[in-house]
Every structure is written in structure tokens, then in C-alpha cells.
């Protein structure tokens, strides 16, 4: 029989609905703090992008464009499987939800695999600051600055995705054991919010790093 201790109403709440609303609202507030964390980096990137437009377009032309586009498709598809998992668990079809969570983990891992392949290709092309960076054009220091932003922002995003994969796996086990079901699935909903937020950040990273120089490759 499934463990139902987590269904217990904590003393500070009047109803289970209020308890659930507090948990979901808390997750949204956490996401807003994450938005501020990435937001500061987006603001800094925008300032330097406006300061050195030619150099940043030159840096962007070094991106592995189609790998970035493929990764966008993969992450969007992982959001689909995450939403479907949430939907089926809420319909009391926990096993179907567990399988979809597993697919979500695999898609997240595929994203990271492609991302680190990109990093390796940049390293091979001497486009990794502090590790033998080479640029011969007129804007060499500014192009290097572009790559600093690239590694910091996509690296921070990858770290969040890695944590997300851990959280989804943490949800996979109780979902497969049916401890998360139609009656109680708040942790899964909160994990889903986090996963979708990672997706939101990526679509902007793809837009600012990969698109501006794609036409001059």
C-alpha cells in the first residue's frame, strides 16, 4: 500500500488545497529568483552586445548552429514529455507517467551530450577562453568576451539542467511506486515547473548566441 504520510495536513494550513497552493506559489517565487539570476547575465550580455555588435556577431558565427537548433527541439520535446507525465499522473495513470519521466531524463541527457560535444568542438577550434583561445581578427578581445558569456550562461544553464535531471529521477521512483498519484502529486508539479523554466531560459540563449551570426557561416 502506498505511503500516505505526505498527505497529512500540516498544522499551519486549513485545507489540503491551501497547502498545495502554498507549495506551488513557493516554487513560482523560487523561479522568479532564478529569473533574476539569469536576468543579470542577460542584461550584462545585452550591454556588451550593443557595445561590440560586430565582434559579438563574429563570435556567434562560430557556434555549432544546427546542434543548437537540434538541442532546442530536444528540450522542447522534453517539456512535452514532462507535461504528459504530469497529466497522466493526475489521471491516476502513474506507470504511464513514470515511463514519460524516464523519457524526459533521456532527452535531458541527450541535450547535455550534444552541449558537451559542442564545448569539445569549440575547445578543438581554440575557442575556449583561458585554454589556448585563438582569434586573429580585429576584435579578438571582444570575441573572447563573447565566448566568456557563452560558457558562463550556457554552463549555468547546463548545471540547472543537470539538477533538473536529478529532480526528475527523484520523482520517477515515487511515481513508479504510485506514491505520486491523482490524489497527491504536488512535488511532481513543482518539478515540472522547474523543468519548463529551464526550457524558457534555453530558448533565449539560443536566440542570443546562435542566431545573430548564423547567416555569415
Amino acid at each position, binding site marked *: 500500500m502506498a505511503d500516505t504520510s505526505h498527505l497529512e495536513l500540516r498544522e499551519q494550513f486549513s485545507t489540503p488545497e491551501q497547502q498545495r497552493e502554498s507549495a506551488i506559489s513557493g516554487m513560482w517565487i523560487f523561479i*522568479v529568483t532564478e529569473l533574476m539570476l539569469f536576468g543579470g547575465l542577460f*542584461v550584462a550580455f545585452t550591454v556588451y552586445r550593443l557595445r561590440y555588435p560586430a565582434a559579438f556577431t563574429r563570435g556567434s558565427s562560430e557556434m555549432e548552429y544546427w546542434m543548437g537548433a537540434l538541442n532546442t527541439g530536444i528540450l522542447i*520535446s522534453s517539456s512535452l514529455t514532462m507535461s504528459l507525465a504530469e497529466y497522466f499522473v493526475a489521471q491516476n495513470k502513474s506507470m504511464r507517467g513514470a515511463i514519460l519521466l524516464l523519457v524526459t531524463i533521456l532527452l535531458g541527457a541527450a541535450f547535455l551530450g550534444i552541449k558537451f560535444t559542442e564545448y569539445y568542438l569549440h575547445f578543438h577550434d581554440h575557442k575556449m577562453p583561458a585554454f589556448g583561445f585563438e582569434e586573429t581578427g580585429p576584435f579578438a578581445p571582444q570575441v573572447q568576451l563573447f565566448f566568456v558569456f557563452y560558457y558562463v550562461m550556457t554552463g549555468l544553464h547546463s548545471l540547472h539542467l543537470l539538477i533538473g535531471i536529478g529532480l526528475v529521477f527523484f520523482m520517477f521512483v515515487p511515481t513508479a511506486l504510485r506514491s505520486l498519484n491523482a490524489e497527491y502529486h504536488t512535488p511532481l508539479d513543482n518539478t515540472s515547473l522547474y523543468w519548463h523554466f529551464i526550457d*524558457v531560459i534555453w530558448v533565449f540563449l539560443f*536566440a542570443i548566441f546562435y542566431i545573430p551570426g548564423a547567416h555569415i557561416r
Partner: protein
Amino acid sequence: MTEQHPSLMTIALTWFGLLGLTLLTSLLGLVNLGAMNPTVAVIIAAVQASLIALFLMHALKGPALIRVIAAGGVLWFLIMMVLTLTDFITRGWLLPFGK
């Protein structure tokens, strides 16, 4: 708070929309639009982010409190972006005192 999970149709349509917009931004990136390339890409990304937040993160049909929190986050981010850029762009517009 009532359960407000989106329907299968909503989830599927959102996914197709997001993939379509990814294809659009990927293809537009190959066309030289000058300074408009990153601008168009960020606008498309903002539409994608809105779709994810409204339909997959339940901001549209969830409780009003969630929309207030989300809108507050976006507002604070825009304050940070706009005020920083206002400072950066307008530097040099005014002569120093005494000149």
C-alpha cells in the same frame, strides 16, 4: 485552488507551436536581416517563453496569485534591463558640467 491541468490537445498544440517557432527562428537566422537578426530571434523566443509559461506552467488557468508572481518577476527583470540600458545608451548625450 482547483486542479487546472491542460488537456492533451492543449499540450500537443503548444508543443507543435514551439517546434514551429524553433524552425522559424532557425531558418530566419540563415537570412541576413542585419541588426534585426537578434531582435527578431528574441521576439520569437519571447513568444515561445509565453507559450511555455501560459500553457505548460499553468499560468493561464492557475490561480491569480501565480500570475501576480510571474508578472512581478517579468516586471522586475524589465526594470533591471530598461534602467541599465537607459544609463548605457544615454551616456555621452550630455556635456559634462561647465563645458
